[in-house]
C-alpha cells in the first residue's frame, strides 16, 4: 500500500513536464502541444487513482493519520524547511476531483480553443496551472502550499488575460492578480507569525495538541495568536476564493477563455481557498467563538449577496461566476460552523457540476458564435443571454448536460448538490436548534436557504432564457452543437454531477466520505467530524424553495421576446439596477482606493517631473491649513493653534516626501528600500537592547 503512495510526488510532475516541453520544444505544433498537455494530466489522473487506491487500502491509519514523504529543502543551519508531500483521506478526496476535472476540461479545450493563434501557449499555461493545483493538494506543509498557490495565481493572471488584445481582458487579469495579492500578503504574514511561534510549517506538526494549545494560550495584541493567524490565513482564502469583500475579481475573470473559467474560476483554483481553510481548520477551531465565527459570517454574506447579484446578470458566464462566489460562500459557512466534511463534500460536488455548467455555457457560446459567423453577424455578443433562446432544439446533448448541472446546483433530489448543500444547511439548522433563534447558525441557515432560492431563481431564469422560447437573434437560430471532444466531457461531468453525492449519502454507512476523509482532523475536538443525521425538514424546505425558485424563473423567462423588458426588472425596479451593478462595489473601490491612488501617483509624478519645489506642495499644505481651520472650528478645544500648524506641516511634509516615492527613479526606490531596512534593523536592535 505504502508503495502505491510513493507515487504521490509524481502526480504534479507530469503536467510540469508537459509545460516545459511545450514551452521549449513543441510550441510550434498545436496538435502535439494539446496532446502533451492532455497526456500529462491523464498520467496524473492515473497516478492519482493509484494513490487513492493506496489510501483506501491503507485503511484508517493512512486516511486519518496521513502518509508523508518529507523532502528537505535547503537546510540553513538548524532550520530545515520541508518540500514534503503527504496523502491522507482529505488529500485523496481532492486527488479524485482535481486531475479528473482538469483532464476533462483539457479535452474540452482542445476543441474549444481551435483556431486560436496561441493554442499551444494555452496548453502550456493550463498544464502549469494543473501542476500548481496538484502540488497544492499534496503539499504537507504551508510553504510548498504557498508556492503552489502563487504558481496558480500567476497562471490565473496569464489565463484571464489570455486574449490580451482585448483591453477588458488585460485589465481583468491585472485586477484578479492585484486583488488576490491582498489576500496572499495576509496569508504570507500569517505564515510568518506562525513560523515565528512554532518553528515549523508542516501540517501534522502544527496540529499536535501541544502546539495548538501553545498557540491558543499565547496572546498577541490582546488576542490569541491562533486566532490572529487564522484570520490572516482566512484573508488569503478570501482573496483566492473570491469571498466578500475581495470577490470583485472573479466576475471579471470571465474575460478568459471559457475552459479557463471552468477550470480555474469554478472548479479548482477558487476552491483552493476553501481547501486551505479546511486544511487549517484545527487552528481556526482551537479558540471557541474565535476565527471560525468570522469564516461563517463572511461565508453567509457571500452566499446570499452573491446569489442576489446573480439574478440580475445577462452575461451567461457572469451568472455562473456569481453562482460560484455564492457556492463558495456555502462552503465557508460549513467550515465556519465547524462542519469540516460538509464543506469538503460541497467542494467536491461543486467542482463537478460547476465545471459542467461552465463547459456547457462554453459550448453554448461557441455555438452562438458559430451561428453568428454563419449569418455574418459580428455585433451580437455571444455571451449575452438576451441574444439566445430556443437552443434546446439545436443542441440537445449540451442542453441535457446543462439540465443535470443545474439540477445538481440547485439541489434537486437525488443529485450531488442536493446531498452536499443539504448537509451544510442541516449543519446550520442543527446548531441553530442548539444555539437558539437569531444566533449565528440561524442567520447562516437563513442566508443559505434564501441563497438556495435565489440560486434556483437565476438558474431557472438562465435555462428559460437560453434553451426555451424562440431564438431572439439570427445567431442563436443558427447555433450548432459542437463536436465530440466538447460534448463527451460534458456527459462525463454530468454523470458525476448526478452520482457523486452518493459517496456521502447519510444512509450508506453514515456517510462513506466521513470515514474516508473526515477523520483527518480527529485530533481536534472543536470540530464536528461525525456525520450529520439526515434532516427531513431541512431537505423538504430546501427542496420546495429550490423547485419554487426554479419554476418561477423558468416561467418568467421561458417566452421572453427580443427587445422585451426583463420581467424581474419590471418587478424589482431600482433594486434590480443595484443588483445589476453588483451593489456598486467596484465603483466603491474605485472611489475609495483606486482613484485617490491614481491621483496621488499622478500628482507625485508631476512633482517629480518638475523636481523643483512645486507650488502644488504648498497647495496641499494650504489645503491642510484650511482643513485644519475647519476642523478647529468644529472642536476648538482639542485643536489649538499648534495643532493647526502641525497639520499643515504634516501635509506639507507628506506631500514633499510622497513625491519622492513615485518618481520612477530606480535609485530613489533603492534608497527607500535601504532606508526602510535600516529603520527596521535599527528598531530591531533597539528593541532587542530593551
Amino acid at each position, binding site marked *: 500500500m505504502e508503495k502505491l503512495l510513493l507515487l504521490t510526488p509524481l502526480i504534479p510532475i507530469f503536467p510540469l513536464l508537459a509545460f516545459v516541453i511545450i514551452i521549449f520544444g513543441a510550441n510550434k505544433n498545436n496538435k502535439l502541444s494539446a496532446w502533451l498537455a492532455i497526456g500529462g494530466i491523464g498520467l496524473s489522473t492515473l497516478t492519482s487513482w493509484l494513490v487513492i487506491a493506496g489510501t483506501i487500502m491503507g485503511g484508517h491509519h493512512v486516511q486519518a493519520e496521513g502518509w508523508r514523504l518529507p*523532502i*528537505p*529543502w*535547503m*537546510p540553513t543551519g538548524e532550520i530545515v524547511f520541508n*518540500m514534503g508531500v503527504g496523502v491522507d483521506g482529505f488529500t485523496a478526496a481532492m486527488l479524485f476531483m482535481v486531475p479528473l476535472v482538469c483532464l476533462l476540461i483539457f479535452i474540452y479545450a482542445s476543441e474549444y480553443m481551435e483556431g486560436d493563434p496561441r493554442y499551444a501557449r494555452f496548453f502550456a499555461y493550463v498544464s502549469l496551472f494543473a501542476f500548481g493545483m496538484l502540488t497544492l493538494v499534496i503539499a504537507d506543509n504551508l510553504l510548498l502550499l504557498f508556492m503552489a498557490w502563487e504558481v496558480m495565481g500567476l497562471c490565473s493572471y496569464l489565463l484571464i488575460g489570455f486574449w490580451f488584445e482585448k483591453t477588458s481582458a488585460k485589465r481583468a487579469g491585472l485586477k484578479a492578480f492585484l486583488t488576490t495579492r491582498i489576500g496572499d500578503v495576509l496569508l504570507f504574514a500569517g505564515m510568518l507569525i506562525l513560523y515565528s511561534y512554532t518553528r515549523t510549517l508542516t501540517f501534522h506538526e502544527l496540529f499536535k495538541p501541544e502546539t495548538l494549545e501553545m498557540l491558543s494560550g499565547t496572546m498577541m495584541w490582546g488576542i490569541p495568536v491562533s486566532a490572529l493567524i487564522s484570520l490572516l490565513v482566512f484573508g488569503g482564502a478570501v482573496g483566492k476564493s473570491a469571498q466578500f469583500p475581495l470577490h470583485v475579481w472573479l466576475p471579471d475573470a470571465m474575460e478568459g477563455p471559457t475552459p479557463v473559467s471552468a477550470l480555474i474560476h469554478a472548479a479548482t483554483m477558487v476552491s483552493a481557498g476553501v481547501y486551505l481553510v479546511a486544511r487549517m481548520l484545527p487552528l481556526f477551531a482551537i479558540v471557541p467563538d474565535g476565527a471560525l465565527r468570522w469564516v461563517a459570517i463572511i461565508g453567509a454574506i457571500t452566499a446570499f449577496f452573491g446569489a442576489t447579484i446573480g439574478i440580475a446578470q445577462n452575461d451567461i458566464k457572469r451568472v455562473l461566476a456569481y453562482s460560484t462566489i455564492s457556492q463558495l460562500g456555502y462552503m465557508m459557512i460549513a467550515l465556519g460552523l465547524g462542519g469540516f466534511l460538509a464543506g469538503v463534500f460541497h467542494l467536491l460536488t461543486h467542482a463537478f457540476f460547476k465545471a459542467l455548467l461552465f463547459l456547457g455555457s462554453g459550448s453554448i457560446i461557441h455555438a452562438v458564435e458559430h451561428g453568428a459567423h454563419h449569418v455574418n453577424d459580428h455585433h451580437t455578443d455571444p455571451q449575452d443571454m438576451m441574444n439566445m433562446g430556443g437552443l434546446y432544439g439545436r443542441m440537445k446533448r449540451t442542453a441535457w448536460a446543462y439540465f443535470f448541472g443545474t439540477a445538481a446546483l440547485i439541489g434537486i433530489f437525488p443529485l450531488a448538490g442536493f446531498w452536499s448543500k443539504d448537509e451544510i444547511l442541516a449543519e446550520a439548522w442543527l446548531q441553530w436548534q442548539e444555539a437558539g433563534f437569531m444566533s449565528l447558525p440561524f442567520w447562516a441557515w437563513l442566508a443559505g436557504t434564501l441563497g438556495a432560492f435565489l440560486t434556483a431563481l437565476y438558474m431557472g431564469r438562465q435555462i428559460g432564457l437560453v434553451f426555451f422560447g424562440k431564438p431572439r437573434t439570427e445567431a442563436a437560430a443558427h447555433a450548432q452543437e459542437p463536436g465530440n471532444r466538447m460534448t463527451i466531457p460534458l456527459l462525463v461531468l454530468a454523470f458525476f454531477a448526478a452520482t457523486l453525492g452518493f459517496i456521502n449519502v447519510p444512509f450508506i454507512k453514515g456517510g462513506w466520505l466521513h470515514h474516508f476523509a473526515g477523520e483527518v482532523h480527529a485530533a481536534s475536538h472543536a470540530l464536528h467530524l461525525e456525520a450529520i443525521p439526515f434532516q427531513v425538514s431541512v431537505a423538504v424546505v430546501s427542496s420546495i424553495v429550490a423547485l419554487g425558485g426554479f419554476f418561477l424563473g423558468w416561467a418568467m423567462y421561458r417566452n421572453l421576446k427580443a427587445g422585451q423588458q426583463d420581467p424581474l426588472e419590471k418587478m424589482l425596479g431600482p433594486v434590480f439596477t443595484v443588483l445589476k451593478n453588483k451593489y456598486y462595489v467596484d465603483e466603491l473601490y474605485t472611489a475609495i482606493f483606486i482613484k485617490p491612488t491614481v491621483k496621488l501617483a499622478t500628482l507625485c509624478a508631476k512633482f517629480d517631473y518638475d523636481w523643483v519645489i512645486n507650488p502644488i506642495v504648498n497647495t496641499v499644505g494650504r489645503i491642510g491649513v484650511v482643513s485644519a481651520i475647519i476642523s478647529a472650528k468644529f472642536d476648538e478645544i482639542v485643536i489649538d493653534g499648534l495643532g493647526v500648524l502641525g497639520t499643515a506641516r504634516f501635509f506639507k511634509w507628506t506631500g514633499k516626501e510622497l513625491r519622492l516615492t513615485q518618481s520612477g527613479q530606480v*535609485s*530613489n526606490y533603492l*534608497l527607500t528600500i*535601504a*532606508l526602510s531596512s*535600516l529603520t527596521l*534593523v*535599527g528598531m530591531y*536592535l533597539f528593541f532587542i537592547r530593551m
Partner: protein
Amino acid sequence: MEPFVFFIFSILTLGGALGVVTTKNLYYAALFLIMSFSGMAGYFVLLDAGFLAAVQIVVYVGAIAVLILFAIMLSRKVMTRNEPLLNRQWGLGLATAAIFFFVMLAVPLNVKWPLSNEVSSGNELVQLGLAFLGSYVIPFEVVSILLLVALIGAIILARDTSDVEVE
C-alpha cells in the same frame, strides 16, 4: 604574520571597493572591482576556504568581470564621456551607507558568538561534494535550472534583432 596578510588583503578588497564607487571612469571601476575580488579570494584563503578562493577567482574574475567589461565596452559611449557617475541623491546615499555601517558595527562589537576552536579535518572538498549531492541536492539541481533560465533570458535580451551591426 596573519594580521599583516589580512591587512594587505583588506587594502586590496576595501581599497578596490572604494575605487569602484569613487572613480569617474567606468572602465577603471571594473578594474578596481577585479582588484577587490582578488582581495576577497585572499580573505577566503585566510579563512581556510581554499576552494572558495579559487571559485571566487574563476567565477568573479574569470567570468563576471569579463561580462562586465564586455557590457562596458558595448555601451562605451557612456564610458568615455567621463561625466560624473553620481546621481542627485548621492549625499543621502552616502549618509545611509555611513549610518548603516555604524549601526551594523554594533553587532560585531557587542555580540558574543559561540566560537569554536576545533580545526577542520582538511577534506573540505569531499565534504562539499557530499553535501552538494546529499543534503543540498535540491538547491544543486535548482542552480542548474537557474543557470538555464538566466542563459535563455540573457540571450533573448541581449541578442540584436536587427541585423545591422558594425563589427
